[in-house]
């Protein structure tokens, strides 16, 4: 029998104090799309880094077509026939596509020749891309194509993709999947990492499930349900966020004709945004990153000032107020970037609790900080939101993404906001933490707050939001009730087909 393309045999990687991978064994055959499933911290990244030559395993071996394979550097892996598309792109905004591709190659041909090959590959695989465009002007989906084409130019046998769809619109996902299926038909293999279970079910024929660094299951995802896959991943039955249906109350947040210039050169200015959120309502705002999400959050939090009347909180104009004045009135925010924006990485959780809780929680008296009160507040957040940490004295950057996110969201929710704005609340967060955060948002709305949920995860918006509006190029579409909305309609809204300041039918 022909040996498999890549065979992992008892791979173990131990970091000081952590076993990242323990005795991992599986095969990838030619022409197979193999899914690697697992929560954050389950050891997926370490494993693919070992295959790509970025990490050397402590024990075990890999066989490439039956021959021992132990890459010491990515260049070695690439020359064997392994290519990888990372979750975070490594592209330079100020260079064009061909130059960026050349930078990632071991022996790049002349640019003219390379451009021709880029065009050829992009046509062959249905990934339209102009080699002379500046990367700074490309959408996230197009940037990903640059990375994929960079890999395909090396003619790899095995393509590793780390969370490739997290930044794509549904239509872009379809294009990507067509390409991946075409690659499979050509006999190439793909190792596909994702936590989006529906995707894995539609694309992959084998799955290896990791938990705490160990293989806990193997299956054919086409024969499993998304729920059973998730439970395999988490190791327990999952709690689906739920709430009772309730009539929304009075309008708490009204944004009228809000236009704000972006402070950054590559940012997107907001153009005449309208929205209206009522008590008890969750207003979902979808859209691909870079379409004005950061600016919208900044304008609502008070970091970017605007005309006074363009933002009204319970009837009061607050557009010109700073973040603390808005907090005092009950408008709280949780930005997307946890480290450096929502929290200071090198400060303790106690100090980070003070960061937004100073006024509402009465942590400061006459300018002096009540550190014991701040610590109590931090500990309350840790306890109520199940933040896994040795204590409130720990620096924020020592926490895992999911735990820090629970802390950041919890910190705002425990301040009893009347309006809460969150951006990407479950980005990079494991399944059980994400479920807990979503439930907390539902509970908050249930208790009579208005919630604005900005997210690129459409499933998340469909799961908990009441209304859906799309942010595209700094413009917000008219909202639609989530109930009965199809993926096709959402795709059109995200693409900008229904954008424009239509009536604020809320």
């Amino acid at each position, binding site marked *: 029998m022909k040996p498999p393309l890549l065979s992992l045999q008892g791979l173990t990687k131990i970091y000081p104090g952590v076993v990242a991978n323990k005795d991992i064994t599986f095969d990838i055959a030619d022409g197979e799309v193999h899914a690697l499933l697992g929560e954050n911290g389950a050891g997926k990244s370490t494993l693919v880094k070992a295959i790509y030559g*970025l*990490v*050397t395993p402590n024990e075990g071996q890999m066989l490439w077509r039956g021959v021992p394979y132990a890459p010491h550097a990515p260049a070695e892996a690439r020359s064997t026939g392994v290519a990888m598309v990372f979750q975070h792109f490594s592209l330079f905004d100020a260079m064009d596509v061909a130059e960026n591709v050349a930078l990632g190659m071991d022996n790049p041909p002349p640019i003219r020749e390379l451009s021709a090959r880029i065009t050829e590959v992009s046509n062959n695989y249905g990934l339209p891309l102009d080699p002379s465009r500046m990367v700074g002007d490309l959408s996230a989906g197009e940037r990903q194509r640059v990375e994929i084409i960079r890999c395909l130019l090396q003619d790899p046998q095995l393509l590793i993709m780390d969370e490739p769809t997290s930044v794509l619109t549904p239509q872009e996902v379809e294009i990507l999947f067509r390409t991946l299926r075409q690659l499979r038909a050509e006999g190439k293999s793909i190792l596909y990492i994702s936590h989006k279970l529906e995707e894995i079910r539609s694309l992959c024929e084998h799955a290896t499930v990791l938990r705490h660094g160990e293989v806990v299951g193997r299956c054919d995802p086409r024969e499993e349900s998304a729920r059973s896959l998730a439970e395999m991943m988490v190791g327990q039955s999952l709690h689906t966020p739920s709430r009772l249906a309730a009539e929304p109350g009075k309008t708490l947040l009204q944004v009228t004709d809000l236009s704000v210039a972006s402070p950054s050169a590559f940012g997107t200015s907001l153009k005449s945004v309208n929205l209206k959120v009522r008590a008890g309502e969750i207003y979902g705002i979808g859209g691909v990153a870079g379409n004005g999400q950061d600016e919208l959050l900044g304008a609502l939090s008070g*970091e970017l000032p605007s005309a006074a009347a363009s933002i009204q909180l319970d009837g009061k104009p607050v557009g010109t107020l700073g973040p603390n004045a808005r907090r005092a009135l009950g408008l709280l925010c949780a930005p997307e970037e946890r480290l450096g924006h929502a929290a*200071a990485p090198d400060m303790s959780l106690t100090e980070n609790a003070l*960061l937004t809780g*100073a006024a509402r929680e009465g942590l400061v008296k006459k300018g002096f900080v009540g550190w014991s009160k701040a610590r109590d507040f931090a500990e309350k957040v840790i306890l109520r939101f199940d933040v896994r940490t040795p204590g409130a004295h720990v620096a924020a950057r*020592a926490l895992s993404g999911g735990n820090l996110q629970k802390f950041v969201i919890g910190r705002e929710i425990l301040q009893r906001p009347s309006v809460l704005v969150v951006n990407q609340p479950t980005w990079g967060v494991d399944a059980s933490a994400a479920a807990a955060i979503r439930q907390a948002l539902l509970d908050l709305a249930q208790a009579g707050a208005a919630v604005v949920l900005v997210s690129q995860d459409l499933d998340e918006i469909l799961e908990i939001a009441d209304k859906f509006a799309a942010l595209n190029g700094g413009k917000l579409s008219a909202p639609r009730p989530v109930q009965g909305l199809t993926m096709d309609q959402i795709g059109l809204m995200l693409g900008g087909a229904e954008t424009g300041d239509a009536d604020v039918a809320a």
Partner: protein
Amino acid sequence: MLRLEKRPSPSRAWNYATPLVAVAATMFLGGLLFLALGKNPFEAIRLIFWDPLFSPQFAAYSRPQLLVKAGPLILIAVGLSIGFRAGIWNIGAEGQYIIGALCAAAVALFFYPAENPLVFPLMIVAGAFGGWLWAMIPAILKTRFNTNEILVSLLLVYVAEKLLAAAATSFMRNPDGGGFPGSRDFTRYPSSANNEIIANTGMHWGVVAAFIAVIFAYVLLQRHLLGFQVRLAGQAPRAARFAGVNPARLVVLSLGFSGALAGMAGMFEVSGPAKLVSIDFNAGYGFTAIIVAFLGRLHPVGILLAGLLLALTYIGGELAQFMLGLPAAAIQVFQGMLLFFLLAFDVLSNYRVRFSMPGRKAEAA
């Protein structure tokens, strides 16, 4: 292969141990340097670190010098550290120090020879005001026109030096001085004299002010919301704006504070140890204080210790130069080593060193 690995959170033990390790390493390598110059290393080290404080022969003169030299360094460094923590780089403390001294001198000369106990406090206020005013120039230029405060504050040092030269040679010159440059001797005008509070200790009002500044800065940074905002703005500017910190206000406050303290240091110096406004009374304290601030890890108590340590190496260095005939450059190399080792070992509080086998070099997680 040696590799540095980032620690999940900074090591407390190393944070305290690095200064000691650095001093030990400096003594060792400095000793080798002195040996290579043909001097007895043990004697040289003893002359630098021990004799200024404890030798029966030299201590009577050197010991008071310790506080005299450390006082202005600490006072200026404490002010600078607040701005440095917030990521606001006032490099021009030397200029603020000079202008503070000139303003204080102007007050003293205005009242001369009237005896009034209010002259001295008024000089302190004038000194602080002068330094504050000089620091407001980069502050306002930064907040209004987004200029770089490093360049503006640094260049203003040279402006201040020109003003000082003009003052010493013309408009503040002592009319009874027989045409020599330099103002009246403030220590001989009782109302303006910043004399030792306790004889032969070097303790003058500037040293008292430095201790007060240390305590004030400690309380500010540890207990006050403004201190928290300063630290936040320095570590995570975006988080600071999210927390409602106004960056322009912070620039004005921290530059103003450091300028006022530097100006005060200039006032105490000119009315005490320096005695009069002369062309070169300033002696570079404003620049050395930058080193003291970083040596003390921008922590008030660390700055207190760093100021004393640096003053000690200056006094001891002079002593070693004088007694052993060591070249001045060797002493400067020695002081440079101390700074280098302190900053180099500082890496260990955030990183740990790992040894790994060759051939695993690509293992970058």
